């Protein structure tokens, strides 16, 4: 420490005679608490208040159509009727299962394509920077625009059908977005296209973080490329892989914009995700208190899942017993 910083830290410190903690240490602690206070207050307003409001509204029949402000919602108090209803609402549950289907298909697809690309990009090859830039573009496009792009591409007379026709020589006139099965395929393709780059980026960062000298050491011990990947890189990327999968799963559960533009959830409700369902319930049916209860229900379910995930990840590897050492 320099003479200067000594002075600063000591300037306001009262003398603590004979105390085990020096004045500097004590002062630092108090200052730290004070500095954290504004952030704590902000947290209360941003998180705690809206949450309480949601809990309150979800136990009523309140709707903006009633003409009462939200805090008067107690007039239509119904305890847990909303919650009872949501367990029996077939449209909600079908949207939930549909969303899970999208996650189960898209996230692994993004992972494997992203990992493949990341491995490819660990090597040097001509035009690498250009390809890199091109690869990352989809991620930066506004999701609504992505939706619109794929909306056009999957038209009955759109470029996808032209491409299929060109490849197979058949006269392809597939009505993608209005077919009860194919609409889902189209939506998934758009989702995979847009978010593989993020997966690629995270995995590439993870792969670059694998200590190069350990990879070299493995190589000099005779390990081929596959052995080096499987025995060294993959185990070391465990955390990054988990993070990437969690981020993409959470994001994918919220999928909305692309679907909204491409199919509006149709045909019928065949591509309706949770978010889309909530949107419709809020702005078409104006069932605000019901939506509030669904929101809370999903929050609690996901928290339980996340809590389990965090517990699983933070498990300590078994310690060697000291006695044996």
């Amino acid at each position: 420490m320099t003479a200067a910083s000594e002075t600063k830290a000591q300037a306001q410190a009262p003398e603590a005679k004979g105390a085990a903690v020096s004045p500097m240490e004590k002062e630092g602690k108090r200052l730290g608490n004070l500095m954290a206070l504004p952030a704590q207050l902000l947290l209360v307003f941003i998180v705690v208040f809206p949450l309480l409001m949601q809990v309150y509204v979800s136990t009523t029949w309140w709707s903006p159509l009633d003409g009462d402000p939200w805090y008067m919602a107690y007039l239509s108090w119904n305890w847990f009727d909303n919650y009872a209803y949501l367990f029996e609402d077939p449209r909600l549950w079908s949207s939930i299962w549909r969303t899970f289907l999208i996650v189960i298909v898209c996230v692994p697809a993004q992972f494997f394509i992203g990992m493949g690309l990341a491995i490819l990009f660990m090597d040097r090859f001509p035009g690498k920077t250009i390809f890199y830039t091109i690869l990352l573009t989809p991620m930066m496009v506004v999701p609504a625009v992505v939706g619109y792009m794929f909306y056009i591409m999957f038209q009955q007379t759109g470029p996808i059908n032209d491409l299929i026709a060109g490849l197979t020589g058949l006269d392809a006139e597939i009505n993608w977005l209005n077919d009860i099965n194919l609409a889902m395929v189209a939506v998934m393709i758009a989702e995979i296209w847009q978010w593989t780059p993020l997966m690629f980026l995270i995995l590439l960062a993870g792969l670059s973080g694998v200590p190069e000298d350990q990879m070299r050491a493995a190589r000099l011990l005779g390990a081929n490329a596959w052995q080096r990947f499987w025995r060294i890189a993959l185990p070391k990327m465990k955390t990054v892989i988990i993070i990437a999968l969690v981020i993409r799963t959470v994001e994918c559960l919220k999928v909305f914009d692309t679907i909204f533009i491409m199919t509006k959830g149709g045909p019928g409700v065949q591509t309706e995700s949770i978010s889309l369902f909530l949107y419709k319930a809020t702005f078409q049916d104006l069932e605000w208190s019901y939506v509030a209860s669904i929101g809370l229900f999903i929050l609690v379910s996901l928290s339980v899942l996340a809590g389990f995930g965090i517990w699983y990840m933070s498990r300590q590897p078994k310690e060697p017993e000291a006695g044996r050492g």
Partner: protein
Amino acid sequence: MAEIRLEGLTKRFGKHVLAVNSLDLLIPDKEFVALLGPSGCGKTTTMNMIAGIEQPTGGKILFDGADVVRQAPEKRGVGFVFQNYAIFNHLSVYENLAFGPKVQGWKAAEVDRKVKEMAELMRLTDRLDWPSAKLSVNELQKLAIGRSAIVEPTIFLLDEPLSNLDAAFREFMRTELKRIQHQLKQTMVYVTHDQIEAMSLADRIAVMDLGNLQQYGTPAEIYNKPANTFVANFMGSPPMNLLDCRLFSEDGAMLLELGDAGRLTLKDPALLQAAQAAKRPEVILGVRPEAVSVVDHTDEEGLDMVVDLLEPIGPRTIIHLRQGSAEMLAVEDKRFSSSHAARVTALLPQAECHLFDAESGWVLGRSPESAVGREAA
């Protein structure tokens, strides 16, 4: 049997950085050769090229006469110990040792037997089921050597393996490494910036600076007959005295003028021969501090110096001498010798003196080729 021959080995990074410049070196079978030099001298790059981690820009690397430049590193069969050990820290000690045998497809029973044998040799048996991340630095170092040695490479490369160890363990490992080399009977190439390590361990030392080989020879050759002022200054602790002086002749005798410290008449035939080879009168006189003797009164021809400082370092004492701009060190094999007068005479035995060209720094009286020790390569 594994002899390494480097022919015109060159490595450039980009257009401007010449990391290794046309290096010729013969590392005989089962010899322990140290690549020695300051950081950035090209020693690590050279070793990386031998291992195949880096591709040379030009030149050949021959293992027993076969060029391996195009061979992938995993096929060259060299053992490599990294400076930071590069232990697989997600694996246990056992798994680290077993890594090489496993990827090379040994039978499970054979792997197990060999791992236990190596653990015994490296004194790691009671650590086998530990996560390697929990080992001490000293143990990591032994694990790193064991992990490479287990697959029995004929060529063993070590990159500053002792530099992270504490002083006492380093001293111990120096002897230990020599013992391991005797036992494994492998060709060992050892990169270090520590001249003491190189001197004590190696059969031969290649001193490098700025990508160029400065000298190649046995420790004694390098120490006693430095090829240039770089080698003279790099080897030894304290380093060789390098004194700026002027050559001139008077009454048919050759003399050296050493500024304020006085002058010396050249008598030793080798030194006279070196003086005759000088192209200009400005030369550098080199003499090892331990060759210099410091006496209070004498009739012999010596240099008049003032005792500036004494540095006792246990068994020896370093005496700092100065006179005007001339500074010189002398080392006495005595503890705490403080009995010197303020003004003393420094006697330089001419048989142990060297003359270097003041401009190029190369030793006079020997051709640069023979000074470097190229004929050995």
